[in-house]
């Protein structure tokens, strides 16, 4: 192995060592020095590559001017779907809430509660997020809703949940924050309540999916549910 080959090996794979390279380095101070420099730089490269990535899409959306166009989104069954009708039906259901959930609903509720543990800090947000941030999350999830009807959104993230990206929102209400998750493709039998893991919540079915509203403790989730259903009305 000559110096040229040794430097190519070192520059290509700084941490790798072979008997040939070892033998060359033992007799070549120049290449040994080059390896020491390269390893020092490698430490820096490793550190530099640990970019601070945003925890939630909303942070990036509110601070970064996109330099490139976003990917085209798939069409969603939640667009242009006659939400007015769905909302009116669901509002009626929501008022006369049914007790005793289905097995699917219970499983969904359990997963929602489990999902909450990964987003625990979302409850601490108090500042309304920019419209652009909410729009980005909704776009990523393929969901449209009327922000004004929804209320003050203080947190929004497109969450990977059950194989889909869904909007995870925290909305401020007079009785404290509630989490709203719009769940395209999920099936829920009418409206189901749950009380699990310190959260009380309600799941409401709709054509094409479901909506979940969760509160901590005894928070009122019915009024926020009504708001969500209205907000989903085109």
């Amino acid at each position: 192995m000559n110096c040229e080959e040794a430097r190519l090996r070192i520059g290509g794979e700084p941490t790798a060592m072979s008997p040939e390279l070892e033998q060359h380095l033992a007799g070549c101070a120049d290449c040994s020095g080059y390896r020491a420099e390269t390893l020092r730089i490698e430490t820096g490269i490793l550190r530099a590559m640990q970019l601070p990535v945003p925890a939630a899409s909303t942070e990036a959306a509110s601070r970064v001017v996109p330099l490139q166009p976003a990917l085209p989104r798939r069409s969603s069954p939640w667009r242009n779907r006659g939400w007015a009708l769905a909302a009116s039906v669901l509002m009626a259901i929501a008022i006369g809430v049914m007790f005793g959930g289905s097995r699917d609903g219970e499983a969904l509720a359990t997963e929602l509660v489990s999902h909450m543990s990964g987003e625990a800090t979302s409850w601490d947000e108090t500042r309304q997020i920019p419209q652009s941030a909410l729009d980005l999350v909704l776009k990523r999830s393929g969901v449209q809703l009327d922000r004004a009807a929804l209320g003050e959104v203080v947190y929004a993230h497109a969450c990977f949940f059950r194989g889909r990206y869904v909007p995870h929102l925290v909305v401020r209400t007079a009785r404290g924050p509630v989490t709203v998750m719009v769940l395209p493709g999920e099936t829920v039998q009418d409206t189901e309540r749950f009380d699990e893991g310190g959260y009380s919540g309600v799941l409401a079915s709709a054509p094409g999916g479901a909506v979940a509203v969760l509160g901590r403790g005894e928070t009122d989730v019915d009024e926020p549910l009504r708001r969500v259903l209205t907000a989903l009305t085109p």
Partner: protein
Amino acid sequence: MNDPDSAKRSDRELEQTLRALRPDLLRFALWLARDVATAEDVVQEAMLRAWKSRTELADAAALKPWLLTIVRREHARLYERKRLELTDVDSLVASDDPALAASDDEQTRELRLAIFRLPEEYREPLVMQVLGGFSTQEIATELGLSQGAVLTRLFRARDRLREVYGLPQRALEAKHEL
């Protein structure tokens, strides 16, 4: 034997793992795309793709490299499809992008910028090796190059970064040219 409960459990576990790996995937995509919004799009598409293909994954230990490969391909697909303009790194700096947050020391920031400025043919194998943990053989297979060509590109990538440390670059003989 297909046990629906077991399948659901395994789906739930995969979903949790995917969520846990998201920052790593996003970081990887960010180095490739050099733009947060694009990187998020790439990761979103990659995760959806991975979810749909989850039955193809035989070895759970290979999940991360498998996902990183999907992210890389998704990024490449995006470039092929959209023929996106090259990101202006100076604009990235001017926008005070979190990717270049000044929380680190000045040299790390300079190095980060220098890596962002590397041509894609050098940056991509470097990111795959350093961040993705891919071997030169794996990178060669993934990029459709010879192992020698990958080694040369990695050498050149690091050679350019020597400047940040005030070190001279080392030229290669013509036989190592790509």
